[in-house]
């Protein structure tokens, strides 16, 4: 009796095992066989935190349209994204600032930048009783962050904002303590408009700030500015819009004071010619309506995909994201790409290949 029971148990376990094996065989991800369109493909990406809400929306929408393609994105920061894509642990990377040549060293192939959307950095402040937007010129803004302009009622700020009751308080500067693309864009702008900033501080995701306190993340800067009277800080546009924070109007290259908005950001992008390498700085852009502190954010992909199926799925996703995906951008406070840039991206995506065969056909 005992023997029979044991044999039956063994048989049951074996049957279970066999069933499992059959299931897993039919759902295995694509190998290097030619794509059939119905094979399950799983892509992974990592990088910048700034565009994460938009990428997250894109990936879920794309999955609804193409249920066999699953894309996973980890927002670990631009630096991490670059490191992972160079090391080959993810299929694509994401970065706010373009890669520096030394960062691309060690990559097993050529990495391309594909612009996906445009973001902006706004200057926010905490001044009791001041409800209207402050107007600031590049000189005054860099003076504040350099520590040269120390008080709110300084004549330089007062002359730009007549009629605004500026208190005799010290300006408490707040910057990002963590390395971030937001800092990279903001310091890029300050370096472009202030030679003093360019020589003493420079541009980067982390810099040595002349004055101020550091707070972690957009949330940290917002929290600190909100709770410290007389403070000024810089945050992402999406953040300021959603939290209804006061923002400064910055004088742009054409001399006009522009409030930050998606239209102003798109105007900035339209005012700068996109070079063939598909990455460019658009701070201090020309044009009357351009907001001066804006930047593209990029996805980093290999020109030559190792795995044809994955490469094709990624190329198709990028095509969708830069065309149909753009309509999701404004609702999430990101500016859509200008049509001229999309055309250039199309031409570049058509050069993506795996081995000798081009990935996108029939587009």
């Amino acid at each position: 009796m005992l023997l029979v029971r044991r044999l039956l148990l063994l048989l049951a376990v074996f049957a279970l095992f066999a069933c499992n094996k059959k299931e897993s065989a039919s759902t295995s991800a694509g190998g290097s066989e030619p794509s059939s369109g119905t094979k399950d493909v799983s892509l992974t990406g990592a990088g910048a935190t700034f565009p994460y809400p938009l990428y997250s929306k894109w990936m879920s929408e794309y999955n609804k349209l193409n249920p066999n393609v699953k894309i996973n994105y980890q927002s670990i920061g631009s630096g991490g994204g670059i490191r992972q894509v160079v090391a080959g642990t993810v299929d694509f990377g994401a970065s706010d600032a373009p890669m520096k040549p030394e960062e691309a060293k060690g990559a097993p192939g050529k990495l391309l930048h594909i612009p996906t959307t445009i973001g902006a950095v706004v200057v926010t402040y905490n001044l009791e009783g001041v409800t209207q937007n402050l107007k600031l010129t590049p000189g005054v803004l860099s003076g504040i962050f350099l520590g040269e302009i120390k008080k709110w009622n300084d004549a330089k700020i007062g002359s730009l904002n007549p009629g605004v009751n500026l208190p005799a308080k010290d300006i408490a500067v707040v910057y990002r303590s963590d390395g971030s693309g937001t800092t990279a864009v903001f310091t890029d702008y300050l370096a472009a408009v202030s030679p003093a900033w360019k020589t003493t501080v420079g541009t980067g995701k982390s810099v040595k700030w002349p004055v101020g306190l550091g707070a972690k993340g957009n949330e940290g800067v917002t929290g600190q500015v909100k709770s410290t009277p007389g403070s000024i800080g810089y945050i992402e546009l999406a953040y300021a819009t959603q939290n209804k924070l006061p923002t400064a109007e910055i004088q742009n290259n054409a001399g006009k004071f522009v409030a930050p908005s998606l239209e102003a950001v798109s105007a900035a992008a339209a005012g700068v010619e996109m070079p063939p390498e598909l990455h460019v700085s658009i701070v201090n852009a020309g044009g009357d309506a351009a907001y001066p502190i804006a930047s593209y954010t990029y996805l980093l992909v290999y020109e030559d995909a190792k795995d044809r199926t994955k490469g094709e799925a990624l190329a198709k996703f990028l095509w969708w994201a830069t065309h149909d995906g753009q309509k999701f951008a404004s609702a999430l406070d990101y500016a859509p790409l200008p049509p001229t840039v999309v055309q250039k991206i199309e031409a570049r995506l058509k050069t993506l290949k795996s081995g000798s065969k081009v990935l996108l056909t029939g587009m």
Partner: protein
Amino acid sequence: MTVNAEVPLVRSESGWFSRLGAAGNLGDWLFRRITALNALLVIVLIGAMAYEMTVASSLSLKEFGFGFITSTVWDPVRQIFGALPFIYGTVVSSLLALLIAVPISIGIAIYLSELAPAAVRAVLGPLVELLAAVPSVVYGLWGVFALAPWLRESVEPLLQAAFGFLPLFQGPHQGFGLLAGGIVLAIMILPTISSVAREVLRAVPMSLREGALALGATRWETVRTAVLPYALSGLIGAIILGLGRALGETMAITMVIGNRAEISASLFAPSYTMASVIANEFTEATEELYLAALAEIGLLLFVVTVVLNVVARLLVWRVGRMPSGGRL
């Protein structure tokens, strides 16, 4: 027949293989080996961590050498790195935390072990331990929204008015800075120090207390002359454990300390700790030298923490070995 200190569970002393077969002893043999392996694993882990940290920071060790510890410049754009501002921030915030927390937690420990009625002890004891259970991010949030504004509006102006002649209390005050960091750390290490101190005080033999009381000492005199001297090394061990916790604290302190790599004499000034700079800048650091410099700061922190913990363990262990009435 000799009696072994180690109870002979195997019958013969010949090779390990023969011991395998000893009937009924395989379990014990395995038990001893596996638990020894677990203990060894911890040591191997620490060694591996130290080794990996050294390898990761080799570029920075080569580039800056000893000057890394004395340089005050932390410039990621120019790729010049120095750890002194972080060492200063870490040490000063931890010392400030100790200064605030030690009297309070030793007081709590003495009260709970010597003076409190059993009912009070049963309630207060767990409540103090509860402080240790609060996540450090919560402390940080409390610091940002409650402590810093309060310091900025009420405490720091008062301190500046009363003690403004001292460089410690000069300069602009934002609420965020070394003082806020020290206070938050003090609250976080309070339960650590007080619970270890309570254990140490409980280990003091009752006979010492009874002897002192019999000689006519008051409660305070008993504690001062009989209990504390005996427990002193253990209390110092508890303090050092608290210090170890303060040195490594990251999240709470980075939210209130101001994150500015500058050395200033004032307690109101913002500062930066070793743990905070690693947490803040590591994910976005792409240059090799930058990463190596951050790894070297991690190595410095690791070394300091390990050394302090070893010293603490030795001190706390001594109290168990002291003959009764022994002093340090």
